[in-house]
């Protein structure tokens, strides 16, 4: 299969998943490691994975395939008014340190873009902490050919 056809089919497949609103609990994402993630969630937020509500107001953009895990672009956009978002966190399930970043928007719009390291093929989570104490979740998955942490 050539690259063009591959991109098209994966794009269609991902679009179908998004449309079906599948990203709920235990979505069977590639590179999930809930045990490792749970530890990081408890340490950073004091919450477990079950306390997070999957939500479609968060748009998390990561590449489906990354050639090098040393440099993976990640982008989060939250479709909520700026003053309702307290913090945006990014997690990668399989990383030795799953917590990638905490971002406090303050006067900025709830948007954050960065480049991260992924140790191996991993699920990436965006967790949004709202002012009224809710935790919203969006997940995606990146397949990594060469890891960036070791």
């Amino acid at each position: 299969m050539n690259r063009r056809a591959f991109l098209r089919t994966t794009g269609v497949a991902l679009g179908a998943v998004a449309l079906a609103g599948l990203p709920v609990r235990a979505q069977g994402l590639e590179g999930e490691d809930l045990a490792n993630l749970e530890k990081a969630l408890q340490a950073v937020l004091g919450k477990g994975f079950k306390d997070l509500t999957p939500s479609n107001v968060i748009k998390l953009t990561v590449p489906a395939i990354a050639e090098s895990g040393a440099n993976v672009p990640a982008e989060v956009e939250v479709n909520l008014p700026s003053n309702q978002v307290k913090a945006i966190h990014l997690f990668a399930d399989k990383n030795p340190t799953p917590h990638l970043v905490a971002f406090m928007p303050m006067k900025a719009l709830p948007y954050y873009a960065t480049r991260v390291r992924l140790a191996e093929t991993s699920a990436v989570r965006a967790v949004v902490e709202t002012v009224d104490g809710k935790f919203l979740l969006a997940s995606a998955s990146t397949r990594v050919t060469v890891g960036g942490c070791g």
Partner: protein
Amino acid sequence: MAIRTIVRLTPAKPKAGENFKLQVVAQHPNEPGTRRDAEGKIIPAKYINQVEVYFEGEKVAEAKPGPSTSANPLYGFMFKAEKAGTFTVKLKDTDGDTGEGTAKLELA
């Protein structure tokens, strides 16, 4: 050692009320502390763990990146253009090294 920091606005001259991106690029190895050198010794961790954005002296955004950030990292923020002024971005890493970059916001 100061961290080289470049700050850029896209679009360079937004209209009032328009959203624009503020992108920060730093020259930094961002060692996570898990990698090994050629002799198998662990390279000690040294990464940027604080990014602060100030607009006209007022803190408007803050990020606390962990060790899993790429080398020569990029940090992107989005703001709504209201009035002209100067953005100052301050970086700090785990060794206490700092970097500072500025960008002027002019309205079209």
